[in-house]
């Protein structure tokens, strides 16, 4: 991941042809694009690449406190945007099999 330009979203190809999943992923990526580059990269490294806070700090040359604040900021914003999109929640629940 460190090969990527931090200003650009990590956007590898998707390995699914499931239309619902593609649609959800597209919406999710749009939300990620609204984050600042630093918040976005911290979120992706921590939550999608499963790095520890220490590893994220090391890779991004940030302090661990900064990483935690950036992550919390990203999570707050994402949760807010997700909550504001009930259609997205509905589709995700259907994909998860939640009635």
């Amino acid at each position, binding site marked *: 991941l460190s090969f990527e330009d931090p200003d650009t979203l990590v956007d590898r190809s*998707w390995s699914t042809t499931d239309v619902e999943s593609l649609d959800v992923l597209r919406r999710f990526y749009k939300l990620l694009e609204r984050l600042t580059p630093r918040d976005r990269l911290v979120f992706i490294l921590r939550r999608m*690449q499963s790095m520890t806070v220490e590893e994220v700090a090391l890779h991004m040359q940030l302090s661990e406190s900064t990483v935690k*604040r950036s992550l919390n900021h990203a999570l707050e914003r994402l949760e807010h945007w997700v909550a504001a999109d009930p259609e997205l929640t509905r589709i995700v629940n259907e994909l998860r099999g939640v009635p």
Partner: protein
Amino acid sequence: MTTPPREPNLSPTLAALTELGRDRVTEASRIELDRGLGLLNARLAASRAQRRALGRYSLVGTVAVVSILVTAYFTSLARHVPITPPPQLTYRIEGGRVLDGGYLREEGPEGMAVTFSEGSTLKLTPGTRGRLRSITREGARIAVDRGTASFRITPNPARHWWIEAGPFVVSVKGTVFDVSWEPSIERFALELREGIVSVAGPVSDGTLTLRPGQQVVVNLTRSETIITDGQPAKDTVGEPEASEVRRADLALPSATTAPPLPPSALPGSAKTPSPATSVTEVRSWTQELASGHWDRILAEVNRVGIETALNRASSEDLFALADAARYRRQVDLARDALMTQRRRFPNSPRATDALFLLGRVEESRGGAATHALAWYDEYLRRAPSGGFAAEALGRKLIISKETHSTVQTRSIAEAYLRQFPKGSYAGTARAILRAP
């Protein structure tokens, strides 16, 4: 000094989105890995060169002179080692310049042109926003953020080009085409003049393959994909389109030979189109599905009646109906179509595939997880290496994670990684096995 807040738990929706993003993103491609390796090597080379230079400074006499020259040489070399390995592809720009991040900024009313050292060219019409995302030995990755760009890619089997336009990625070997993307209306268009390209993105089947003369327009807001079939541009310059027949030419081997339009899903209502004059041809449900016209399929079923439609549709169109119904959350109709597929065409490969899709439908219905698992198990039993095997085992893994014991789930995770170490659910499987 303030203490950073604790990391909060994610809401179920955001957790699911994160998991989906983690599971469904493929491993890095060979080019991405090579690019990263090149970056690492360049940094190491620069570091080694600097160390050698320092060592040579310590010599005396004539050796010192040589050392100074060597030092100067290596210092110069180190200064010029770029972050990315030296690309064999170089380019020159007319009508603009490249900003940080590869952004192409036009500096005149004529648009921009980028000419690559091996002869490939890229022209941006005035107002178009684009980026040179990466240029490597193997090719280049270029993004069209907004507007229209014309490409003439010099054929070279050793190189591969990718053109990104919104959520679409055009895979190119050597060809001539125009591509446009308008983010405000989520409209993608590509007109192919020469060669063959494949387009990946949110189209019906994930990928489209186009032949010379074809134009594809994808309107995401209307869930519509239209392929206009004309003659290759070099043969029809200045002439109107040869036909306005809408076609859905998916990336199937037979599609490249331009097959005639198949009959309608309902034989009784089918009309044989004339290839030369068929402006409003009868379309099969498979074609409608490929064009994103899910609602048309469902409307036709409502018009003729569900039972009639299920009993008269071909095997192929039953599958299309099941997909259309699934996409529109009509899970009962999807289930009926798949069950009919198994009843009417029990020996067809689609009858086996229907097993997997029935599992998906059961999941969508929010029914008992055991029902979905039963369908996946039956599919895996009949088609252990089938096209949906990885997905079926992956879905089993997800369901098991939520409903079964850790021992069972770990067993499925191990089986998944043995069979599909690079599969979509490999990340989830590894996370399960890593957990205490």
